[in-house]
């Protein structure tokens, strides 16, 4: 199944193919994103990496690194 993902750092939306029992951490692995460098929201709520996801969820990935 496919899930909609917004990656804030690149300002792009992607459709990503995931397994039915996928979790946030699996999605990050697919996208080759180091979990230390991002926080993730599922349906506008910040979630931990073990959180399960499905095709109806809206996922947003925010970069931790800013430089100020």
């Amino acid at each position, binding site marked *: 199944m496919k899930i909609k993902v917004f990656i*804030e*750092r690149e300002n792009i939306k992607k459709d990503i193919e995931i397994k039915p029992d996928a979790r946030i951490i699996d999605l990050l692995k697919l996208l080759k994103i*180091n*979990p*230390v*460098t991002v*926080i993730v*929201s599922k349906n506008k*709520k*910040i*979630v*931990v*990496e*073990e959180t399960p996801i499905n095709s109806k969820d809206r996922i947003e990935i*925010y*970069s*931790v*690194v*800013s*430089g*100020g």
Partner: protein
Amino acid sequence: MCKICSERPVYVGLDGKNYCKNCFMEYVEDKIFKTISKYKLIERGDKVAVGLSGGKDSMTCLYILDKLSSKYKFDIFAILINEGIENYREITAKDAKKFCKKNKIKLIEFSFDKNFHLTLDKIKDKGISPCTNCGILRRYALNKAARENKATKLATGHNLDDEAQSLLMNEFKGNVSFSAKLGPRTGVLMHSKFIPRIKPLYFLTEKEILVYSKLRDLPITYIECPNSHDSFRNEIGKVLNELEVKYPGTKHSIISSFLNILPDLQNKYQHTKIGTCSICGEPAAKDICRACEILELNT
């Protein structure tokens, strides 16, 4: 579920235990309070200038110090430095101004253009890394503006990631004496014109601060400085993040080891002579301070 109250988790601590929204915010605030207490960063009656960029670190620092200031009887105000970085600083500065206005926090503005007659964009392709120039001029500006506004402490939003990066950068460049100036409060250099610097977010990771600022819904535009991609700091940060995911706790261990040897480093380098710049009268290690060197080269 949250290790304290069994609500939905938003963050996993280094010990592998979960925190929900409220317990996580309490954890962050408690960590900052303990850092301030343990290292005596702020005392009753202090006037604390907070270096404000409008980014997540400095906004979180200002938000929490503002919360603590009435209970613990100290004053705060913010200093906003505008270096002149197009499509970046004017955006974060807008957030910073809005936040200070809403929370009735006095805001001092210091622009490179007005005070130094240059912008970072104008000098960035002249050989020296823009981050080096920016760091030197920003520290100079913050110290000057803090002192001129009678601050007794200067707080910055430096976090655990920043500090671990600085330590490694100093190691790799053979500048160990520079590390004696790190730590939760000002290191070894004493000068009557130096305002002691404090880092209340010292033991929080960049990720913890981002989660906190999002949960608190602080008015922040999360954008990255356009110059940071090319910096040595950025390279070191990447290495540290790769190590952190393989060996969780790496950054904390670096800081913890460093704090054990910091008193020895300070003892060794505390006799470093600090004089006064012959051009501007500000503290300087040589006859001319590094800020004036940059200004002489570029104006």
